[in-house]
């Protein structure tokens, strides 16, 4: 069991190493002058600064040395210097990671709760209930986030003034963007969870349970829900990870700081050090989340716990 967890952690480290290598390859793969690539377009710098970049990245050294230096810098937490913004990349990202994590986690929790409630209410019901539910889910998935955000702003912030329209840092400022972001996610998760529940309820053990005199509530609560949580964990992990880098629209509509916006502006201004840092950060988030999902599998399904060590 412990050996199994350790193996997953090592696999996570390996994934991070691959991500670091790929970003390095991308950085060095840029055609032309690597110094210009690091600087970005339109940056006017003195020869001293150029020399500093060359020595910082080791552009005058062999590729192997550059690579090793890149890795050792990442390990020590040094993400480089953004010449576009004129500050260290860690400084650029410092204020962004918190709000992003806050938003992603809040939206995921909201979506999971909504999905559990909706799936429990609709699983195994009649045809009408189910087709209404899947219609609602389809609408939730296909509604454009920025439109939903604007509608939410119009009513809840401007007309009724229940929540602030912009900013971050308070709970009331978090609610609207989190809910808006959660809507499509909840649509997907409800479908996954309901299907999981129905698959579990169709299995022979569910009949065994009912033949013991167990009612529908305990059947779902004590048995089926746990089975359905396996696929829910998979989906949730994936969604949570993708929200770390992909909440740009919501962040923009609600004028929130966040990794998504930083990434977007870094891409448009070709601020390569920032782009690579965000990519690595998102990869790290995915890795950690996947590790947690793997641990959740082990907690849910004893068949995956092997008798090693």
């Amino acid at each position: 069991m412990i050996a199994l967890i350790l193996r997953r952690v090592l696999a996570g480290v390996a994934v991070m190493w691959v991500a670091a290598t790929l970003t390095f390859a991308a950085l060095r793969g840029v055609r032309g002058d690597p110094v210009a690539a690091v600087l970005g377009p339109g940056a006017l710098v003195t020869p001293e600064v150029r020399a500093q970049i060359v020595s910082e990245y080791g552009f005058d050294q062999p590729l192997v040395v550059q690579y090793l230096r890149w890795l050792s810098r990442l390990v020590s937490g040094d993400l480089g210097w953004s010449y576009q913004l004129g500050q260290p990349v860690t400084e650029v990202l410092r204020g962004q990671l918190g709000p992003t994590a806050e938003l992603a986690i809040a939206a995921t929790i909201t979506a999971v709760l909504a999905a559990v409630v909706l799936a429990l209410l609709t699983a195994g019901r009649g045809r009408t209930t189910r087709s209404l539910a899947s219609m609602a889910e389809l609408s939730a998935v296909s509604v454009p986030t920025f439109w939903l955000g604007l509608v939410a702003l119009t009513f809840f912030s401007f007309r009724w003034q229940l929540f602030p329209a912009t900013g971050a840092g308070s709970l009331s400022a978090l609610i609207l963007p989190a809910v808006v972001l959660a809507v499509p996610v909840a649509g997907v998760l409800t479908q996954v969870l309901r299907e999981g529940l129905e698959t579990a309820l169709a299995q022979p053990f569910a009949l065994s349970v009912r033949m013991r005199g167990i009612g529908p509530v305990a059947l779902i609560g004590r048995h089926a829900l746990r089975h359905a949580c396996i696929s829910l964990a998979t989906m949730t992990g994936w969604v949570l990870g993708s929200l770390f880098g992909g909440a740009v629209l919501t962040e923009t509509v609600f004028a929130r700081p966040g990794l998504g916006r930083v990434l977007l502006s870094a891409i448009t201004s070709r601020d390569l050090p920032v782009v690579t840092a965000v990519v690595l950060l998102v990869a790290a988030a995915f890795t950690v989340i996947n590790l947690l999902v793997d641990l959740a599998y082990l907690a849910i399904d004893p068949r995956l716990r092997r008798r090693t060590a």
Partner: protein
Amino acid sequence: MTELLDARGLTVSFDDRAVAQDIDLQLAAGECLALVGESGSGKSVTARALVGLAGPRATVTAERLQVSGEDVSRYGERQWRRIRGSRIGFVLQDALTALDPLRTVGAEVDEPLRLHTRLGRTARDAEVERLLTECGIPDPERRKNQYAHELSGGLRQRALIASALAAGPALLIADEPTTALDVTVQQQILDLLAKLKRDGHGLVLISHDLAVVAEIADRIAVLDRGRIVEQGPALDVLSRPRHEMTRELLAAIPGNRNAKPRQVHRQGPAVLSVRGVSHRYRERSGQYRQALARVGFELARGETLGVVGESGSGKSTLAKVILGLLRPDSGDVLLDAEPWSSIGERDRRRRRREVQFVPQNPLGALDPRYRVGSVLSESLAAIGVPRSDRLQRIAALLAEVGLPPELAVRRPSELSGGQRQRVCIARALATDPRILVCDEPVSALDVRTQATVLDLLADLRDHRGLALVFISHDLAVVREISDRVIVMKDGHIVESGPVDDVFDHPEHPYAKELVAATPRIPAVETR
């Protein structure tokens, strides 16, 4: 009041179509009633109607339906729940899926206790251990904390029975409780059920196999197309069957029927030679398990080799080696005295058409989205039959396995179990093979279907001169079709020889045990 169950005129219908009609069943304490019929005869749905679980779309009516003297015919769901588990226990077929795989067997046995008794946690804990012991599970303190997949097939079936008995029901209904099990394990479970009967439980035993129920049933009811066509004391039904269906079910029992005399015998040199084949798997624990140990035999045209043994004895590994899907650690497999297991996959693929496979579970072995015609067409294409000839060849193949040509447009889900297995056989024949490896080809089928598929395989062998490797855990089936037999245990051949010698005079203790465990009907006249 010893009458545990009294049903008169029980009728179950789906959308006005009756699947069980005018069923009369009575059962007293300490008695066993067997409900026997083919799949689709209505036996399972009848049993489920007895606990109010015939399904949401089912309409159940009865002139009388009493459980332990109480009228349950007008019960609502809430009332049913009160007596399910406490008055009636229900055991399903395969404990691997009939127990919640995510919960320990202890938790599963505990569940009815929590619901139906007022026992506290420690008292329930002791009761769980007592129940597991009662059902013949040694070391219950350890077993109760294990999951179904960690137990052997026999132990988890015992655990399932323990969970059905937990809240002390006097009436126990068991729906094919031994069908998924090996013969020896089946015998142990039947012994357990017999013991429960002696202890005063009333037992309704459902099976497609008369031989299985013969040992413990006091009375037998035979179902055909939703009706009881014959019901009476077990001995009468077995020895003086009155209805045609009963006679057919009896006649279909392997070893019980007049198998066709062999027309063709061993011809010429060996087409398949297995020489000293050994293989071992590395287990998760890092230890090695010997799946095959120096296994060897020869097989000629028109000959059948039976391979018997319980799960884990190496039978399926042997099948993989013969099919060239697994390279053995040592030893050789030769095809027509030419190397087969030792050559590269590229060379082997050219000759793969000569060795074909018939699976245990035809539903799993057919692509659910392929129609029967496409399944066969794919195999024909693999050996280069031009598109223009395929329709004709498909019709011929279907005819050869006794299926009408119209079936070519059906999908596997639209076929019966027997038809599916025939499609799998036709697919194997499509490449014009010389060797057919059949891995438990009839164990998923009803007794009567089993008999017809066995006849088909024997016919094909004789007409095409096929060499058959016939793997099964069921001795009676193996005996019926094989010329020679090898008995396997833990990867070793422990006994081999002509089939009648081995089964009439088994020498190895394990072979003796297998022969003794085969269900048999004592002194039966079939015609």
